[in-house]
């Protein structure tokens, strides 16, 4: 497989590994080039990126008062 001429199937197969930052520079650059010229794969990549942002945002929460009190109690012991 030539990294310069990835087809859509190869790009989609590696898309999550690419988004996870787990591809080496050469493979990552090849996917970048494909995404610059392929609207369908670009749309798919943008969708997965935005979904990932939403998942990341799902880890935002306010710690309940009971936890604040519990932690304060723990720290007071030191």
């Amino acid at each position: 497989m030539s990294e310069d001429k990835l087809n859509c199937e190869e790009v989609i197969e590696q898309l999550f590994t690419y988004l996870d930052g787990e591809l080496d520079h050469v493979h990552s650059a090849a996917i970048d080039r494909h995404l610059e010229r392929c609207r369908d794969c670009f749309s798919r990549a943008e969708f997965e990126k935005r979904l990932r942002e939403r998942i990341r945002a799902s880890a935002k929460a306010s710690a309940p008062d009971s936890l604040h009190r519990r932690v304060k109690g723990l720290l007071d012991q030191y």
Partner: protein
Amino acid sequence: MDRLYGTALRLTGNPDDAQDVVAEAVSKAWSKLDDLRDLESMEGWLFRILNNAFVSQWRRRRTRDEVEREAVETSDAGDFSLFQQLHQPFLLWWGTPEQQFLNDVLQEDLQKALDALPDGFRVAIVLVEVQGYTYEEVSALLEIPVGTVRSRLSRGRALLQKALWQQASEAGLVHGRHPSDSGAGDST
């Protein structure tokens, strides 16, 4: 405290366990404060302690066999892709169904779908997508091969997207084939 709790909540999938993990992590961090040499690295240090506290508690609650069995028994979502369900290639970029879906899906629905995943899958997704861990780091933390990390991520993402599709279908946000009609879930 909010960020620690939010991360613990997604790792554990429930508020009581999340509070236990944060309390244990803060207690450990406080007792090891002398080990912290660089205040600028405090955040990463705290989150590492949080993750280790979570893994310790998780292991106390569940054996590795239980986690693996749950993963095997969970119905396989194959390579289910929300994008493929939603995408209509003839529409222009803005206002496409997939963009609309991302705008409409509630944070609460995402949390519910994530929390409902089998533990092994949810933890891999939270560590990589929320915390930015590398596959090697997840492998070291959970003491599992990198190949298992990859496979849990792949299956977990497919299950998560399938659950989101089902939620959206039930809420009337999307109109189309049910996942079970698409063959996406028939690969077991």
